[in-house]
């Protein structure tokens, strides 16, 4: 049994990492350059005055770093795999689709982690805020990645080709970024409603509180529950829609 799980998650993960071993620098740069750039941009624009705003921006960009791997990279990879009939290979192997998808996600997610660390350090320095680094950040980051991956997979499966998948993914990331950086009380009424159906909103609120050191067990628990619900929905989507059996 242990060997079966190892085979179904660990081996596909190694196979995915083999792909990025040739281009890991590019992946690393892309996944951290954009969030770091936005942190810097907003600092230079000088629009941030309060500590709350600063932490909100740092948190928002942490979520962006996660979204780049879980939405953009994942959507494009899935679209590519679909177009190249890569799923044919995996579909003729005795493995679970869900574990395969988790392996692919993990292989990208590894690249989000250094980016997140860089954003926290650079953000704290630029805005002169001290951040609380608590263990609660880790499950929130992982949950956020898993929950957002649902959007990435859905785009990858629905898009007609890899390039369109990339474009749609950029749109989705725009939405995630927007909702993650602007504090909820400043959003127009209609958009607040949309915010609650996007998984990253739950992660942002809890992460911000965690970085400020004000995270209550209640908020932490509810946020994790919400992210878990989105993640389960994502895994069900994968089971149903990952069409490695063509009609």
């Amino acid at each position, binding site marked *: 049994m242990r*060997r*079966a799980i190892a*085979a*179904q998650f660990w*081996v*596909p993960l*190694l*196979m995915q990492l*083999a*792909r990025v*071993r*040739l281009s890991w620098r590019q992946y690393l740069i892309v996944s951290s350059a954009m969030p770091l750039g936005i942190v810097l941009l907003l600092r230079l624009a000088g629009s941030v005055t309060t500590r709350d705003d600063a932490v909100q921006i740092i948190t928002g960009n942490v979520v962006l770093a996660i979204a780049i791997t879980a939405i953009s990279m994942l959507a494009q990879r899935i679209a590519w*795999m679909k177009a*190249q*009939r*890569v799923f*044919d*290979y*995996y*579909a*003729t*192997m*005795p*493995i679970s689709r869900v574990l395969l998808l988790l392996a692919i996600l993990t292989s990208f997610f590894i690249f989000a982690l250094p980016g997140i660390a860089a954003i926290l350090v650079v953000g704290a320095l630029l805005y002169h805020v001290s951040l609380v680094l608590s263990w609660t950040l880790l499950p929130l980051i992982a949950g956020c990645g898993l929950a957002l991956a649902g959007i990435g997979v859905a785009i990858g499966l629905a898009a007609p080709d890899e390039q369109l998948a990339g474009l749609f993914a950029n749109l989705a990331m725009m939405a995630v970024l927007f909702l993650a950086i602007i504090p909820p009380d400043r959003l127009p009424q209609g958009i607040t409603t949309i915010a609650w159906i996007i998984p990253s909103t739950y992660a942002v609120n809890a992460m911000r509180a965690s970085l400020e050191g004000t995270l209550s067990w209640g908020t932490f628990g509810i946020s994790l529950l919400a992210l878990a619900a989105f993640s389960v929905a994502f895994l069900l989507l994968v089971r149903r829609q990952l069409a*490695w*059996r*063509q*009609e």
Partner: protein
Amino acid sequence: MSSPVYHIEKLTKTYNGGRIVANDAIDLEVRPGELFGLLGPNGAGKSTLVRQMVGLLKPDSGTILLHGRDITRDASWVPRIVSFLGQKPVALFDLTVREAIEFSGRLRHLSMAEARRQAAALMDEFVLSSCADQLVARLSGGEHRLVGLAVALIGHLPVLILDEPTNELDPAMRRVVWAHLQRLQREEGATIVLVTHNVLEAEQVVERVAIIRNGRRIALGTPGELKALVDRRIRLELLFHQSPQDCLGLLRQLGTITEVSASRCVLLVEREHAQRAIDRILAEVTLEALDDFRILTPSLEDVYLQLGGRERATALTATPAVGETYA
């Protein structure tokens, strides 16, 4: 007889909303431990058929029973007993040859040590050891085939479905592959389904054959049974030192002359008269007058060409006239 590995009934698959019928009510049975050949011209629907047999494609209607269990609804368990060689192994392009084969073994639940051992043996057999550490993407078309084959073979699953296993291979490697498959069948009792264009080679290994054309199964049987369906005349090829003109009178009495040139003559004779014809040629033309004298029974290729594969005739064979002259 033991129950079939595959039992396929009225299998139908269409594309483009029913406008293209790729498989049209195909019935087929694959028996345990046999080497079964699927022959047919390009676009006949062979690949569509095998993709349904491995669960990559969902049929429109009909049933596919694998060991008595229907796989048209749930095919998730098929990879536990069936391995498949399909198109180029794009999924493995970023891996080295060694990794591609070993990882595939581990996906089939081999231990790391066992995967390593089997991969080494397969690389050795298919002459891939020298490129073991090269990326699959960088290999030639023939090498892709061999990697794909090794990937299909690692883990020793009881049923193998191979789509064009010898495409793009040089003659020496073709022979290695056929020998390997025959050994698997003989020693491990593997059931092997081959899709191939290469009728001449397939004839040496397959035990039963289905010929597919325009999505329909137009013939099914052993090569011998199929040959009996078509022209059964024996083909005599005579190569003369000098012009065959003097002998043509005699040869015309023995059968139908289909080709004649400055030094060569091809003759078709009825099976019942073959013995007498051969005796008379040996006695009256004599071997001294001949450079070469060949006696050929119809090949599976002749059957294929007559029944279905006419479009492929020129591409298939060095002596393209064979099928045509029978007609």
